[in-house]
């Protein structure tokens, strides 16, 4: 009863932690686990070892859409894993024997799920291996049945879960029978295991499946889409190895115990008898031992969570998650609360302030270390930029580019519902209703998107509905048509602004791109447009840019521009402070950061990639 209570308490702690700290909905958002209720989708998973576990794993991962249900699934898997491990280690689900062993894989699993990119099917594959081991052990007394079932179930395991699970299963069963069995299976099963381990993957590779040679024996890592940034570390491998290790150690322990028992029977030594028989029930000693054991487990959980929890990595996912849900204030909170810079947080932050209409005022509140690339994610092409590029271009109204990057993103992350939704919108905007209908039909066969499908499917039948949709109409007004897309951010935003002077976001992005690239002359060309937008007062960033332009151009006609006292004062104070340090930028940095860290002047002096590049060149 006491053990059961402890187990329950452990599971509740894990459930609460996963629900509140890890938040499975963030796992869902980061990975976009694909699942469609169609045979076409299913057929992608049937012709390679491990495919069906990936399919089923993806199905369970759909529960991560809700943090609550996702947490329940994780804890349930944890519980099954623990119970199987206990049975493997002790041959029974009841009693205290093997109780501590069962926490080992659970704690490793707990560590691994801190990585938002760990696909759930990796865990599911291990679970299948553990179920396989447990099933064989349950049947251990029925020698002939085990001899028949073991290789057959092994083949099934190989097909369902892939080679890593298969090897884990075979090794564990072989070790178990080698140490624990008293009958002929003690010798036969390990031999069969070795034969299976060699023959089954070899036959599968040679005759059945088109898989890579590297994945022949130990495929721990399925072929992830490029956008999934998961890399298996030692703990990942240890999760798989922990099961045979537990079998080995618990078997050795059992053997030693049996040996001691026999020895105790032949001797009168009290110590030996005490060890063999264990402490008397309900003694203080037993209570202390239970407390020590429990504390150790709780301590392990604490240490693991402290070591594995990475707020910065979580923030990267969180910022994008809030951006996807248009919760812009939270994006800003996440970005500004994170002391470490990240370009993906930078992308999300820039979108957030733009959508809140605080673009120019708040732009430098986040360190813009990427310079103008923060508004031009596809400048350097990589798998991970496809999604941010798609989002940014959609918002600013560059629909052809949004669609282009959506297709790229979909290629590297097939069946992602998030990307499909974006494609639906882009196609509706471009008036490609049949294309949108096909995508909606596919989305309908997934989960969670009924509202979206129900809203937009009628648009593909009654196309006049699209003309009444403000979002679609605005994008149609903004999108450039019949233009070549050049690889130049300022060209793109200029084009967007030329297409529609209503596109304020494009104007702001254009202005900021000029400023970030130190192109003050370009900025001054659109100054009149900015003045029209900001009739009362130009944002500080723009005013500082005007001052810089006037001073650099040597025209000394600052009076022509209706600039605020604040910007003049900030400009003077900044230079005065720098002057105090004899224009030694390095020495002045800390002081300037405190007072002017969120200004364009500070960016130009310290953060701009162009300035840094020049500085580095000088230093060299």
């Amino acid at each position, binding site marked *: 009863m006491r053990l059961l209570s402890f187990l329950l308490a452990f599971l509740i702690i894990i459930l609460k932690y996963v629900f509140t700290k890890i938040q499975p909905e963030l796992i869902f958002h980061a990975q976009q686990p694909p699942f469609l209720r169609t045979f076409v989708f299913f057929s992608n998973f049937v012709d390679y070892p491990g495919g069906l576990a990936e399919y089923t794993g993806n199905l369970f991962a759909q529960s991560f859409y809700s943090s609550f249900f996702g947490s329940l699934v994780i804890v349930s898997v944890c519980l099954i894993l623990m119970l199987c491990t206990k049975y493997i280690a002790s041959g029974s689900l009841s009693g205290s024997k093997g109780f501590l062993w069962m926490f080992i894989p659970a704690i490793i699993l707990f560590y691994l799920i801190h990585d938002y990119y760990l696909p759930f099917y990796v865990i599911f594959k291990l679970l299948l291996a553990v179920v396989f081991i447990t099933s064989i052990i349950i049947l251990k007394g029925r020698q002939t049945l085990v001899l028949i079932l073991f290789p057959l179930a092994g083949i099934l395991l190989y097909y369902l879960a892939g080679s890593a699970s298969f090897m884990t299963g075979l090794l564990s069963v072989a070790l178990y029978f080698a140490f624990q069995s008293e009958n002929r299976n003690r010798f036969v099963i390990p031999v069969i295991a070795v034969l299976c381990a060699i023959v089954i993957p070899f036959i599968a590779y040679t005759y059945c499946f*088109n898989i*890579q040679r590297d994945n022949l024996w130990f495929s721990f890592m399925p072929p992830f889409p490029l956008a999934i940034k998961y890399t298996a570390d030692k703990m990942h491998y240890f999760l798989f190895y922990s099961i045979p290790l537990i079998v080995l150690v618990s078997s050795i322990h059992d053997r030693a115990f049996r040996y001691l028992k026999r020895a105790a029977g032949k001797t009168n030594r009290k110590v030996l008898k005490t060890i063999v028989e264990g402490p008397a029930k309900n003694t203080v000693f037993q209570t202390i031992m239970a407390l020590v054991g429990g504390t150790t487990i709780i301590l392990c959980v604490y240490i693991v969570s402290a070591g594995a929890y990475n707020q910065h990595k979580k923030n990267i996912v969180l910022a994008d998650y809030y951006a996807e849900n248009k919760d812009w204030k939270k994006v800003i909170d996440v970005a500004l609360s994170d002391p470490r810079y990240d370009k993906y947080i930078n992308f999300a932050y820039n979108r957030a302030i733009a959508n809140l209409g605080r673009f120019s005022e708040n732009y430098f509140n986040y360190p813009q270390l990427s310079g103008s690339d923060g508004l031009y994610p596809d400048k350097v092409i990589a798998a991970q930029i496809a999604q941010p590029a798609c989002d940014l271009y959609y918002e600013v109204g560059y*629909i052809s580019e949004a669609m282009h990057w959506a297709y790229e993103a979909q290629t590297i992350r097939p069946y992602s519902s998030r990307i499909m939704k974006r494609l639906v919108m882009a196609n509706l905007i*471009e008036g490609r209703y049949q294309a949108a209908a*096909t995508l909606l039909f596919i989305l309908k066969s997934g989960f969670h998107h009924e509202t979206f499908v129900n809203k937009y499917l009628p648009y593909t039948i009654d196309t006049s509905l699209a003309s009444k949709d403000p979002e679609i109409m605005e994008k149609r007004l903004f999108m450039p048509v019949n233009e070549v897309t050049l690889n130049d951010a300022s060209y793109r935003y200029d084009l967007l602004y030329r297409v529609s002077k209503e596109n304020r976001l494009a104007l702001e992005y254009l202005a900021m791109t000029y400023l970030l690239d130190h192109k003050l002359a370009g900025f001054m060309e659109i100054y009149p447009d900015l003045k029209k937008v900001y009739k009362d007062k130009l944002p500080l960033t723009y005013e500082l840019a005007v001052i810089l332009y006037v001073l650099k151009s040597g025209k000394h006609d600052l009076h022509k521009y209706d600039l605020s006292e604040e910007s003049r004062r900030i400009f003077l104070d900044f230079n005065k402070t720098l002057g105090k340090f004899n224009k030694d930028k390095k020495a002045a940095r800390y002081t300037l950061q405190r007072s002017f860290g969120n200004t364009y002047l500070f960016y130009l002096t310290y953060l701009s990639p162009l300035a840094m590049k020049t500085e580095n060149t000088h230093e060299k």
Partner: protein
Amino acid sequence: MKNNCVMTLKMKKLVILSATLISLSCSKKIDHYSMADSTADIFPDYVDVVIPPNIAPLNFHINNKGTAFRVEFYTEKDKGFAIEQTSCDIIIPEHRWHELIGSNRGRNLFIDIYIKNDGWVRYKTIKDSIVSENVESYLAYRLINTSNIMWHEMGIYQRNIENYTETPIFRNRSSENGCVNCHHFNQSDPERMTLHFRKCFPGTLLLLPDSMVKLDTKTPCTMSPFAFAAWHPGGNYLAYCVNLVHQVFTSTIDYHHVVYDDASDLVIYDIQRNRVTTSPRVSSQNRENMPSFSPDGKWLYYISCPPQTNDSNRTFAKYDLVRVPLDIETNTWGEVDTLITSHETGKSISFPKVSPDGKYVMFSMGNYGYFTIFDKDADLYIYDIEKLDNRKLESNSEYAESYPAWSQTNRWFAFESRRMDNLYTRIYYSYFDEDGKAHRPFVLPQKDPLYYKKLMQNYNLPELLKGKVKVDEMTLRNFIPKDPIQVQFDSTIDIDALSGATYIHQTENSKK
């Protein structure tokens, strides 16, 4: 043929479960019904199409709502069979279908659809035509996601079009998702194939009747590895394009993507000598691409456009259709003959394919460049070699049509089209009659009628095959990691005599 018999539909495991049969025994024809004034709305669109007698059943989905459906298939001479069920997915029994259309060549196939709601409604009869000429029993294609820069999973597949069996020739999952492309067969012969591998285990695979070779096709005298291919009918030579390919993106609706070459040439690969040769005729400063041999092997048809001079000219290049006579054994080339100029059409020609009887060249023509698969305005055209005349084919739609592939009977061709939803490319077959008229095409049938609404991949480069490609995927997987054989550039060719792009680029690269 069993007359007047209602087929009980044998639903297979993976067909939609809701499809339950109303009648398990023979039932009578429906006597009481009202008439609709249109044909039923079916998907895919198999109305008024011309079909070969060896095609797999044209399963379809009925979009009209109903609680029961009865579909009768018959011809003028044959009462055929009927299906009655509650599911709107019409899965036609294969043996019944083949019995019916196989024995009714040259006749019309009629499809009567009855839909029950409050009462039965009979829709107008759908009339398709069964012609006498079979089409090649296999089809090879690539399945690939829509993307322009990145790629992940893709594969070359072959499909038995008499049933629904699809088998992979090669999928890139065993080659670290490297690109596989430009599969091409010699006159529909499944034993002679060329296929390129990029990025992972790069090289060109040549599948020959008795052997398989992998080639490293980049030489110091050619600007790139081999790209688009054309088999010489004799089977001992191939023409390839070598090119410096680029792409730009545009905001033109339905035309977001333009592929162009900075430079390109044609080369001839001699299989037996492992030698690459060319001529100033096809390695000129112009950009030559997309070769196709005439069936007698004496003419090489291809597309050509002027060299790049500025960005606009480069990006929005328009290709002409040209041909050059050659004696491939002696490497003797005649004068280049321009057949259709972009100047006269205002458009750009791509994917020329000479018919097996040598009478026609079929090609795709779009706005710009040669990669017309994404170009909504791209259509198929036919050039009559004797009459020196070209015209748009009847089988076009308002969406992109490209990459035609001739049947060796001359009576059929397959092609890519985006007409289904303007989103994904599917393969269509069209009948090409003796008068040179193309008939209303039909999409490659699938067992699941809604398959094309569920598949998020494009069909790419259809190639008709007389039989199955026998080499299996595992053999290819084991073969392609092998080191390729370096092809040799023809030492008798005076590189300096070539005024072409290859030479220019080679010189520029040497300077670098």
